[in-house]
């Protein structure tokens, strides 16, 4: 149980300002659907909260139950309870998955986890995410399909049991069965009181995990916040109505075209350059 509070956040990617004074609060156990057109900063927000060094926070604050998140290095943010399921999880050659998970668990414990305890925990997580346990012997994400990588992120979320979990397009690359597995595991995690900040382009995932609120990110700011009915409206009508109702003209892109670093979710190059 925790409250993540973001105030007046300004974030640059290189020389381009992506987030321009963003405010958002995720209270105890809430699930927020983060919506918005491509290239407006949704993934940037998640990456900045986690502390991705590719982004620079130039102004504003992020706090978790009053603790200054921006003052923490990435690993401390994780240990404080923040989790990010990456849009494009890296393949790390030579790094055994199970060894990595053990190191991640040990990083947040005084005494190293006992082997038996670790393996029962690991087996349970693999079974629940319906990933063959054999995959724990493989190198981290190496040669995994898109869907396997995404389920693997959920597996890590379960192992680390965060207080705030951020999911960046966790549903991309998942077939229908896998989507249901992922949604079921998210729901279980919600029941433990974990707060969620979820980016998805599809109402399908949201319909399964029942967000308590929705926030729409346009031009680097949250311009509309409301109930889950916003998700359905955007699914139906797109983002045009924001212009007429809120007088916010939706920019085609923020700043210059996205460069080739993995700026994450919504930096679809096709749209930006086309």
């Amino acid at each position, binding site marked *: 149980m925790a409250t993540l509070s973001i105030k007046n956040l300004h974030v640059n990617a290189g020389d381009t300002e992506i987030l321009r004074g963003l405010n958002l609060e995720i209270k105890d156990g809430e699930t927020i659907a983060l919506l918005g057109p491509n290239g407006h900063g949704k993934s940037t927000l998640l990456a900045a909260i*986690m*502390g*991705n*060094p*590719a982004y620079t926070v130039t102004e504003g604050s992020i706090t978790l139950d009053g603790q200054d998140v921006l003052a923490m*290095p*990435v*690993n401390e*943010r*994780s*240990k404080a309870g923040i*989790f*990010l399921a*990456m849009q494009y*999880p*890296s393949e*790390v*050659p*030579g*790094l*055994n998955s199970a*060894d*990595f998970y053990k*190191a*991640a668990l040990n*990083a*947040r414990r005084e005494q190293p986890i006992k082997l038996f305890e670790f393996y029962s925990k690991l087996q349970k997580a693999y079974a629940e995410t319906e990933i063959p346990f054999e995959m724990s012997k493989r*190198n981290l994400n190496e040669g995994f399909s898109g869907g396997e990588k995404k389920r693997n992120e959920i597996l*890590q979320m379960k192992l*680390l049991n965060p207080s705030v979990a951020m999911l960046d397009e966790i549903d991309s690359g998942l077939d229908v069965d896998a989507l249901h597995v992922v949604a079921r595991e998210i729901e279980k995690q919600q029941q433990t009181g974990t707060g969620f900040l979820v980016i998805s382009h599809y109402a399908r995932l949201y319909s399964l995990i029942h967000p308590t609120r929705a926030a729409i990110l346009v031009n680097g700011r949250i311009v509309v916040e409301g109930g889950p009915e916003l998700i359905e409206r955007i699914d139906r009508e797109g983002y045009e109505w924001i212009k007429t109702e809120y007088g916010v003209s939706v920019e085609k892109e923020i700043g210059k075209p996205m460069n080739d670093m*993995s700026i994450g979710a919504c930096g679809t190059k096709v749209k930006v350059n086309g």
Partner: protein
Amino acid sequence: MAENNDLQFIDCLPVNDLVVPEGETLHLEMAFFSVLPTGELKIRVKKGASLEAALADFSIGSSKLNVEIALEEGATSEFHLAALGKGDSVKTYIPNAIHLEPHSESLISSYGIASEKSNVSFLGTSSIEKNAKNSATRQEAKVILFDKESKGAASPILKIADNDVKASHGASVGRLNDDHLFYLESRGLSEEDAKRLITLGYLKPIASYFADESLRQRIESEIEGGIYRV
């Protein structure tokens, strides 16, 4: 009838040049834990013979090693090298393959980690001589710079003097991948631990080329110990 031979050298180089006789296979394991003498290793792979060689170097101090693998008709050779540079040592490896006759094949693959103020260089040349048609060669080298003051070079060279051959090379020298580091750190690992785990992954595969179980274990623990001492 092909015969198999195994040779193992620990902390020393073969005194004489090695010859793999016609049609035979030589499995050569070399591991250096305390010292790698500066020197030269020459191996002749005769007609239709094959060489499988692995070299793991965790020694302290500087050294320069020249390797020359000469291949006759239909000979094949694989040479895998892994090195960990420590302290302010300068380690230079020059693994060369020379294709003298047709239908010969060679692979040289070198992986290095330069830590602290060390300098690790791979400067091998794979050459296909005149008349060595239909030969195939690959020379690859990769150096990871672990610390700010570490240095490295990877310059695999190809020299081709005939047609109808296959030749390729690959090289990289660089710091650890930022995306990988961020990914590991986002799960709670400190930057140092993330660097160590990733580095382990680069070196560990060398152990699989050692058939001797106890030596393989020694290499694995040396890799882990070496990385964690850094």
